């Protein structure tokens, strides 16, 4: 028989519940760091292996260089980007972000409301060593918030050098030449353009990497775009960022499984020579080097061509950044680690760990010789200055549904013009949310 009588049992349970509530209310206690080294947790998503390797290489080198601070990498965040965005925003808003975190630079940073949620490093000495274009992509009017954790790289077309050699093709200088090359490749029985909409974000590369051509037509385009004076649908040059994606579908160039293939399928196809072109960002070069080391020199790079053969350039992507929340308990330790990450020493650590992946954004960093072919193809653009940061690093306005819209265009569901209009409406929502004037 139960020791409880009929009356006392529910009462006892209720009492226990109240006690449990009271206990849980005071279980969150502080930790005392007065003894021993300060431990800093560096939080990031688990989606990209290279990013985790980068963070660990930097943390290990820093931990080995001194004994007051221990940096621990916590790559337990969600791999899905929407879920990660949610988690970042929630943690920042509720003051539950660990001491440091890894996140995108550019427009995605603006959506985190850095002025209110992040540690401002505007007055730190190491900020002076950072590239100006980088600082612009991690700043607001009031502050600077992040240091670069990787290299800047170009976005554009990865192409198969063996296929180009076999068919006697030249790297295209205009979009029409690109289409002509693709026709020849298709006729030769290869996949002319690989697309991988199973990873929906890869659908955006043609649209985003085409921005150099928009920039070349008007260097102030991004400023006007932020002020709502220009848009994609009504600008004859900018609209091509969307119609080019439609051209690729209409030409019948795509791999059969474009709707379900993933990033790694695309990289494998262009590395092993089953596909001739794959629109991609420079960072993916590291995956080719790891997974298909025999084919590193079989893949080259060129920027998305425009209308004129004389104005070829490259759209560049800024790397993600190391940030700290405004409420971190160890601001000085965090800044010490940031100073390390923004030093030539850290650049060398990354070169050792990952190889040459692109251009460093810290003054004094040097690139060793023997860069892999994709990076080597990017360097002339950097040297000649024919580069433009992607729009998301010049303007806080980026419509969040671009990848879905681009999947529709790239699958023949929607025309490029219609996609451009839909994207303009999408971007307007973002601009209004940010409270920008003119929208």
């Amino acid at each position, binding site marked *: 028989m139960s020791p409880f009588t009929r009356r006392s049992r529910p009462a006892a349970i209720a009492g226990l519940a109240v006690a449990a509530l009271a206990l849980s209310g005071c279980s969150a206690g502080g930790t005392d760091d007065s003894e021993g080294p300060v431990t800093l947790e560096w939080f990031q998503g688990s989606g990209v292996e290279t990013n985790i390797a980068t963070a660990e290489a930097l943390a290990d080198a820093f931990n080995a260089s001194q004994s007051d601070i221990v940096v621990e990498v916590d790559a337990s965040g969600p791999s899905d980007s929407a879920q990660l965005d949610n988690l970042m925003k929630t943690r920042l808003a509720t003051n539950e972000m660990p001491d440091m975190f890894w996140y995108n630079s550019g427009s995605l940073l603006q959506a985190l409301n850095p002025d209110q949620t992040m540690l401002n490093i505007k007055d730190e000495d190491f900020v002076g060593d950072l590239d100006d274009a980088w600082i612009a992509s991690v700043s607001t009017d009031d502050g600077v918030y992040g240091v670069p954790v990787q290299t800047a790289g170009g976005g554009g077309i990865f192409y198969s050098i063996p296929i180009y050699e076999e068919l006697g093709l030249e790297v295209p200088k205009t979009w029409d030449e690109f289409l002509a090359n693709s026709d020849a490749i298709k006729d030769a029985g290869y996949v002319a353009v690989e697309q991988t909409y199973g990873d929906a974000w890869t659908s955006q590369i043609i649209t985003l990497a085409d921005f150099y051509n928009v920039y070349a037509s008007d260097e102030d385009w991004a400023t006007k775009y932020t002020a709502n004076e220009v848009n994609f649908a009504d600008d004859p040059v900018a609209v091509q960022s969307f119609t080019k994606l439609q051209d690729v579908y209409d030409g019948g160039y795509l791999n059969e499984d474009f709707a379900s293939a993933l990033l790694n399928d695309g990289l494998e196809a262009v590395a092993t020579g089953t596909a001739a072109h794959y629109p991609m960002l420079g960072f993916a070069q590291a995956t080719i080097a790891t997974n298909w080391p025999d084919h590193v020199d079989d893949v080259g790079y060129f920027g998305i061509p425009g209308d004129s053969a004389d104005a070829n350039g490259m759209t560049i992507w800024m790397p993600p950044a190391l940030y700290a929340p405004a409420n971190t308990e160890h601001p000085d330790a965090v800044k010490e680690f940031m100073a390390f990450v923004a030093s030539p020493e850290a650049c060398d650590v990354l070169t050792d760990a990952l190889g040459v992946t692109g251009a460093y954004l810290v003054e004094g960093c040097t690139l060793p010789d023997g860069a892999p072919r994709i990076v080597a193809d990017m360097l002339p653009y950097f040297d000649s200055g024919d580069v433009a940061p992607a729009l998301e690093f010049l303007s806080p306005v980026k419509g*969040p*549904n671009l990848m879905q*819209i681009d*999947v*529709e265009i790239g699958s023949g569901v929607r025309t490029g013009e219609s996609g451009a209009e839909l994207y303009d409406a999408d971007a307007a929502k973002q601009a209004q949310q940010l409270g920008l004037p003119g929208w």
Partner: protein
Amino acid sequence: MATLAPPDTTQAVVTAPGTPPPRRKYAHRMYPQWFLLPGAAIFVVLFIAPTFASFYYAFTRWTLFDVEFIGLDNFVTFFTDPQLSKGFTNTLIFGTLTSGLKVVLGLLIGVLLTSDIWARGYLRAVVFFPVLVSTVGVGITFQALMDPYDGLINQALAALGIDGPGWLTDPDLALYSIIAVDVWRGVGLAALIYMAGLVAIPQEYYEAAKVDGASGWHRFRNITLPLVRPATTTVVILSLIGGLREFQLIWVMTGGGPGFASDVLASVIYKQYAYGFFGLSTAGNVVLFVVVSAVILPLFWWLNRKQTDL
């Protein structure tokens, strides 16, 4: 537990027919009313307060830090933006189709598994099994099975010489593929509810009908169908509420894609939140709340009224 006196006896005495509802009834309550307080406090803080706050935030542009009142703009956006209104129609398609299919298939399976068939207990377990599996697990499994090239479904079709479609990659098909998986996952519960309803029908009705020469179809149509109405009501309501709010399966299988082809209200709301459109996202939640209420409440009333008419 055996020492517990049946509470019915005290209740029956107090509410004996003829006595007006006495104040003494409260004095005789088994437990003091303040026992409700802990539960009520949790309910108010975690449910009532956020619900009412959300009605306010739905009319604002909200960054979690600043709030700007913008009237009905969020709702206008929700119904004029093609990608958001698509989620609205998809929700209705998803809710009605899954609910309808679960009723029809659940009843058929229920009838089959209450009849005298071989391996009945085993088959009941098999039918109910998908209900026990995590939705995310089901989603990932079917995502693999429905892969257009390497998936088991299309490989099996290919062995038969059929060129299978892109179940989840064809924009015209994706939503219906998910509906099929949701029905597979949920029909076991519907069948279980129907089985409970079916075994509660007294056998005498069937025997009497048999004596009168009613065919199997007539017995099903005129005895089984009317008398399992309470079970039907339960299945319709439960599956419709579940269907209108479905998120997990869709998010795991397609993420609302390709493009916006399989977006429903719940996935749209989630994405708006992830994009930082907190006001718009909250407006979506209010729309979802209103839709579910507007569909379920009249339906509930109607189904229950029919039941008492019998």
